[in-house]
């Protein structure tokens, strides 16, 4: 309306202060990577599960492709890479992580070869391509999504088929056997050993690439820190079951990068200890993550990285504490008890298999409903992640299960991991409001099942 002034919406979110510390750690990591070549480091590009402890022990610098795409999206710098990818021929419906990262590959090559196509500006290339050092070799560690393995296969081709590449194959945990289940059964045991064997092969590959014997002690040391960080992260997550919630899904999203690819060291442990302590401090002092928390929801889907701050404020504005999600509770060294620090290979392999897109729907149903119950949730929000078929595949089935077995409702909204153009704010707003009203009505009628009573 002409002349109207939009009233600023009160920010009811209260994000953890420690996430700012995490942000600095991440920025330092990338700055370090951008200058790695100058310091004589070999550089590996990789995708999928967190192989960084391996690379750390091998004395390498590492670039996680998805993480770099996510970082660009979070900083709203993804445009030039995506334009370069589009000019090269990648369709906009292709996984936006891969599209952004492959666009970076194109830019990186143009930067090194001086091939200017005229579409992407020189300045943008300086910002992106000049900073991201070209790889010396690739390692693919993708479980769950078939696109992940193909993506690195194409990166290898974009770089002229000249760089070494190592692939780790992960069986999809489909559940063929009668004894199949989460962390159990013949299928789980066989797949764990299969991937562990490949990790041992990877060590030989890394020795060839670096020309040095692999430092197993360094791997044990790194994994000792990561295991401890994983335990502290779990403790912090468990504390968030408190009512009102002391921290939310969005705080944990902001802490994905540290647990996913920062070096395993004391700083990492300190970070997650401080996160846990801040959460405990909030419980002790009655501080909530969302002002006037009224609803508690689950969020399924990979993060819409360029909307993190916006979504945290949006949900809080409606009194919603988003507390659990497949991408948080069921990802990123989430079962630290599996790691034997004196011989961490098997536990690492198992975590790679535990990628949240590598389970059959039965296991995902178990995990999702478990978390809904444990966190006392009122409903689910499914981020129908436009270019991520791996995450979205079972979502409709999970929504049905939550309704049928727990009696809790769901909504879907469309967005994407690294392409803001797919996000439709009006759809999320209207569907969220409708679901919250439905929850209100059901509370008034007292029709929520046990464990889901109205929370004031």
């Amino acid at each position, binding site marked *: 309306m002409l002349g109207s002034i939009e009233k600023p919406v009160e920010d009811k979110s209260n994000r953890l202060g420690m996430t700012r510390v995490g942000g600095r750690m991440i920025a330092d990591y990338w700055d370090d990577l951008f200058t790695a070549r100058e310091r004589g480091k070999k550089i590996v590009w990789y995708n999928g599960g967190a192989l960084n402890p391996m690379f750390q022990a091998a004395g390498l610098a590492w670039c996680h492709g998805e993480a770099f795409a996510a970082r660009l999206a979070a900083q709203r710098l993804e445009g030039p890479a995506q334009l370069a990818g589009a000019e*090269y*021929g*990648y*369709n906009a*419906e*292709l*996984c936006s992580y*891969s599209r952004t990262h492959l666009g970076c590959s194109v830019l990186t090559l143009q930067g090194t070869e001086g091939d200017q196509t005229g579409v992407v500006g020189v300045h943008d290339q300086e910002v992106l391509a000049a900073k991201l050092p070209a790889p010396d070799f690739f390692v*693919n560690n993708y479980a*769950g*999504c*078939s*696109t992940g*393995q*193909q*993506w*690195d*296969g*194409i990166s*290898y*081709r974009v770089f002229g*088929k000249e760089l070494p*590449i190592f*692939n780790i*194959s992960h*069986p*999809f945990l*489909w559940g*063929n056997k009668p004894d199949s289940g989460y962390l159990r059964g013949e299928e789980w045991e066989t797949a764990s050993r*299969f991937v562990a*064997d*490949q990790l041992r*092969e990877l060590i030989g590959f890394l020795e060839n690439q670096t020309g040095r014997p692999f430092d197993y002690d360094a791997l044990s040391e790194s994994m000792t820190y990561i295991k401890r960080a994983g335990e502290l992260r779990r403790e912090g997550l468990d504390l968030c079951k408190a009512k009102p919630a002391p921290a939310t899904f969005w705080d944990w999203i902001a802490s994905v990068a540290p647990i996913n690819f920062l070096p395993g060291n004391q700083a990492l442990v300190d970070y997650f200890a401080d996160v846990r302590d801040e959460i405990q401090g909030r419980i002790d002092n009655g501080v909530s993550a969302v002002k006037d928390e009224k609803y508690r929801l689950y969020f399924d889907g990979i993060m819409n990285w360029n909307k993190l701050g916006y979504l945290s404020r949006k949900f809080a504005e409606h009194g919603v504490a988003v507390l659990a999600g497949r991408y948080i509770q069921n990802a990123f060294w989430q079962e630290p008890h599996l790691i034997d620090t004196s011989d961490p290979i098997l536990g690492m392999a198992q975590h790679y298999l535990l990628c949240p*897109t590598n389970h*059959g*729907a039965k296991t995902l149903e178990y995990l999702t409903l478990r978390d809904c119950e444990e966190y006392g949730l009122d409903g689910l929000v499914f981020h*129908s992640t*436009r*270019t991520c*078929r*791996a995450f*979205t*595949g*079972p*979502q*409709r*089935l999970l929504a049905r299960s939550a309704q049928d077995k727990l009696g809790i409702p769901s909504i879907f909204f469309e967005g994407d991991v690294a392409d803001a153009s797919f996000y439709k704010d009006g759809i999320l707003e209207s569907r969220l409001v409708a679901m919250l009203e439905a929850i209100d009505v059901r509370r008034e009628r007292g029709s929520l099942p046990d464990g889901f009573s109205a929370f004031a």
Partner: protein
Amino acid sequence: MTDASSEAMERLVGVARDPRAYVGRWRAEHPGGAVLAILPMNFPRELAHAAGALPVIVQDDQQPITEGRALLAEFYCGYTRNLADQVATGRFDLYDAVFTADHCIQLIGATEIARTLKPDTTVFLGMLNSSMNDSWAPAKVTETMAEIRAEIERFTGNPVGPDALRQSIEACNRDRRLIRQLLDTRSAGEAALSPVELQDIIVSSMVMDPVEHHALLLEALAGLHGTERDDRVRVHLSGHLCHAPRRELLEVIEDSGAIVVDDDLYHGRRYLSTDVAEDGDPIAALAGWYARRNVTIPCPTRVQQDADWDVYLLDAVRHSGAEAVIHLVPKFCEPHMLYYPELRKALDAADVPQLQLETEHEGMPLESFRTRIEALVERALRRRPVHV
């Protein structure tokens, strides 16, 4: 064609267009026999055939998607959404079990719909290692083939011994070879069969018992007379890795001044490209077949550093004398979207005119496609030498 061969061809077309009716007849003739839904792209049908079952590669049945829309996101490929719809509307009920061997995340999504909506049905994934250069891949693939055999034996209650398996391998090879001959003669200049007829022949081979199919196809071909190509622009069709392009699209291509001389479609050369070794251990032979298929015609769903789809495509174009390539990319097919720029680069470098058409399950803009194909044809025609 003679009356007998026309009738045989009609029967093949009938099976291709209505697999359900064929399955019904097969059941009547094989009381107690199991009908297995097989999902593309690399499942060894021979194992199911050797167990006395009918392995039917499930086709995109070209019906509008209704209830399936509520089960898979609209940005899944048309084939997988169609599969979900077949399950949701009961059109999948003619199968006794579902077997698949490929790790495509969208296919797995559709398979999950079958498993969830049909909880009492066996839905088996024997996942074939898709990273072909892994040193452990041969052993792993052989192990998976043995697992598939064991599961089929368990499900059907019939043992799959080496002799029975060899016989099934021979039967499937025979049928593959016969159809491949048709494709080879097409590349060499034969134009007796249209792309729609060839597609019907291939679809029927995916549905029928291979022995029966081979006999019927021989009958159909008995009255076939050679027909030379006319001077339409020779095109190679590339893509559609796991389901058939719509028949009306094939017709529009040939109505627009082009003639299809070769392809690497799943419902084309890709499906038939490779025979299984008939000697030695048959399980090892099936594993070897899986590996060689990706060398014969590389597939972007596999990762293999020393097998290049772009190189294959250029060789095929040179071999058939194709003057242009039409890429048929099913909307949302990620492996094809990933590999497409490599194909484009290679064809551009070789100065081969090309056109990308993004196909959809429903609502394909055929008239828009016609205009674009006509433009491609014009472009190719201008390259022909002028004779004065």
